[in-house]
C-alpha cells in the first residue's frame, strides 16, 4: 500500500500545479531502509514526517532500559516529537522505521513559511492534526477504561493488518504487556 502526499492532500484540499510545485520545494522525499533511525534521543527533532509507504515507531528508553513505544505511524500518518519540534529542545525519543519506508519530511523552520506560501494547506494540516488529537483522546480514553487485555483485543480486532506488520514484541511494548503474555493472548484469540 502506498499513499503519496499529493494524493493525501488532494482528499481534503485540491492543489493547483503551481501550489504542488511550491509544496515540493518545501519538502524532502526519502527512502529509508528497515530499522533506520530518523530521530535519536538528545537530538532536536527537525522534521515532521509523512509516511507514504511503510511504518514508523516512536519510543523512548525507560529507566529499566527497556524500549517503551508510545506511537506508531502508518501510511497517511504524520509523526514527530512535537515538543522538540516546536521548542527546538533535545528530544527524549527515538523515531525508527519498522519496515523499509518512503517518507516525505518538512523542516521545522519551513513549516510556517509553507503555510504562508500556500494558505490552503492550513485546512489540510488543521484536519490532520484534529484527527491526530481525536485519535489520541480516544486512545487515552481506552487506556483508562479498558484492562490491558481488553485493549489488546480491541486493538487487534480493529487493526488486524497492523498486527501482521508489526513484530509482536513491539505491540507488547506499546500496550504495556510482556511479549510472552501477548503471545498467550494471541493463542487464546485464534
Amino acid at each position, binding site marked *: 500500500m502506498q499513499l503519496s502526499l499529493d494524493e493525501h492532500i488532494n482528499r481534503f484540499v485540491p492543489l493547483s500545479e503551481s501550489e504542488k510545485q511550491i509544496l515540493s520545494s518545501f519538502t524532502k522525499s526519502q527512502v529509508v531502509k528497515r530499522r533506520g533511525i530518523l530521530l535519536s534521543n538528545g537530538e532536536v527533532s527537525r522534521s515532521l514526517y509523512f509516511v507514504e509507504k511503510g511504518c514508523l515507531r516512536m519510543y*523512548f528508553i*525507560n*529507566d529499566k532500559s527497556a524500549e*517503551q513505544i*508510545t*506511537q506508531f505511524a502508518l501510511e497517511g500518518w504524520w509523526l514527530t*516529537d*512535537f*515538543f522538540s*519540534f*516546536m*521548542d527546538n529542545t533535545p528530544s*527524549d525519543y527515538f523515531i525508527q522505521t519498522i519496515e523499509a519506508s518512503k517518507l516525505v519530511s518538512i523542516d521545522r523552520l519551513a*513549516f*510556517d513559511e509553507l*503555510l*504562508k506560501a500556500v*494558505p490552503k494547506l*492550513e*485546512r489540510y*494540516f*488543521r484536519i490532520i*492534526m*484534529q*484527527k*491526530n*488529537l*481525536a485519535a*489520541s*483522546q*480516544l486512545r*487515552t*480514553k481506552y*487506556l*483508562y*477504561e479498558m484492562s490491558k487485555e481488553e485493549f489488546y483485543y480491541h486493538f487487534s480486532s480493529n487493526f488486524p493488518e497492523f498486527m501482521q506488520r508489526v513484530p509482536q514484541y513491539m505491540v507488547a511494548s506499546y500496550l*504495556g504487556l510482556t511479549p510472552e503474555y501477548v503471545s498467550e493472548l494471541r493463542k487464546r484469540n485464534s
Partner: protein
Amino acid sequence: MNNSITLPEHIKKFIGLNPDEEKVIQKVTKTFHLRQSDFLLRKNQTCLSHYYVNSGCLRMYFLDEHSIEHILQFAIEGWWITDYNSLIRRHSSEYYIQATEQSVVIELDKDSYGRLIKKIPKLGIYFNNIMQINLAAVQTKTKFLRTMSNEELYLHFSNSFPAFVDRVPKEMVESYLGIFA
C-alpha cells in the same frame, strides 16, 4: 491571583494582529463567565466548538462503567480544549467539560472557525501551532504515564507544575494521572 491571557494577546505571541482583525475575532467568538463547576459540555451533547481559556481552569473527563471520573485533560490560561471526535464526526460526546474554578472562556464554534480563517488566513498559522502544542502535551503525558509508578508520577507532576497542583483538588490530579487509591 491567577494570570489571564486574552485571546488576541495569545495570538500575538505567534503572529501579528491589527485592531481590525482583533474586532473580527471578537465578532465571531462568544465569551462565557463560568462559576466553579459550570459545564460547557455534557455527555451526549454534540461538541460544536473549540474553547479557549482566558482565565481559570477547565477539565475534560468521562465516567467509566463504575461511574468513576477519568480526567483526560485540563486547560488553563492560554490553552484550547475540545472533544475532537465529537467535533469532527458530529456525533454525541462521551465527555464533560467543566470549570474547576471561576473561569472566563472564549467559544469558537466550528463554522465560525472556517469563516474566521477565510477572513484572516494567517490565523491558520496560529491554530496549527496551537494544535502542535496540544499534540506535544499529549505525547508528554503519554510518556509520563508509561514510565512511572503512581508515587513517582504524582511527585514528578507536582514538581513540574506546582502552581497547578495548588489550584486543582488532589483527587482531580490523581484522576488525571490515572492514580486510584
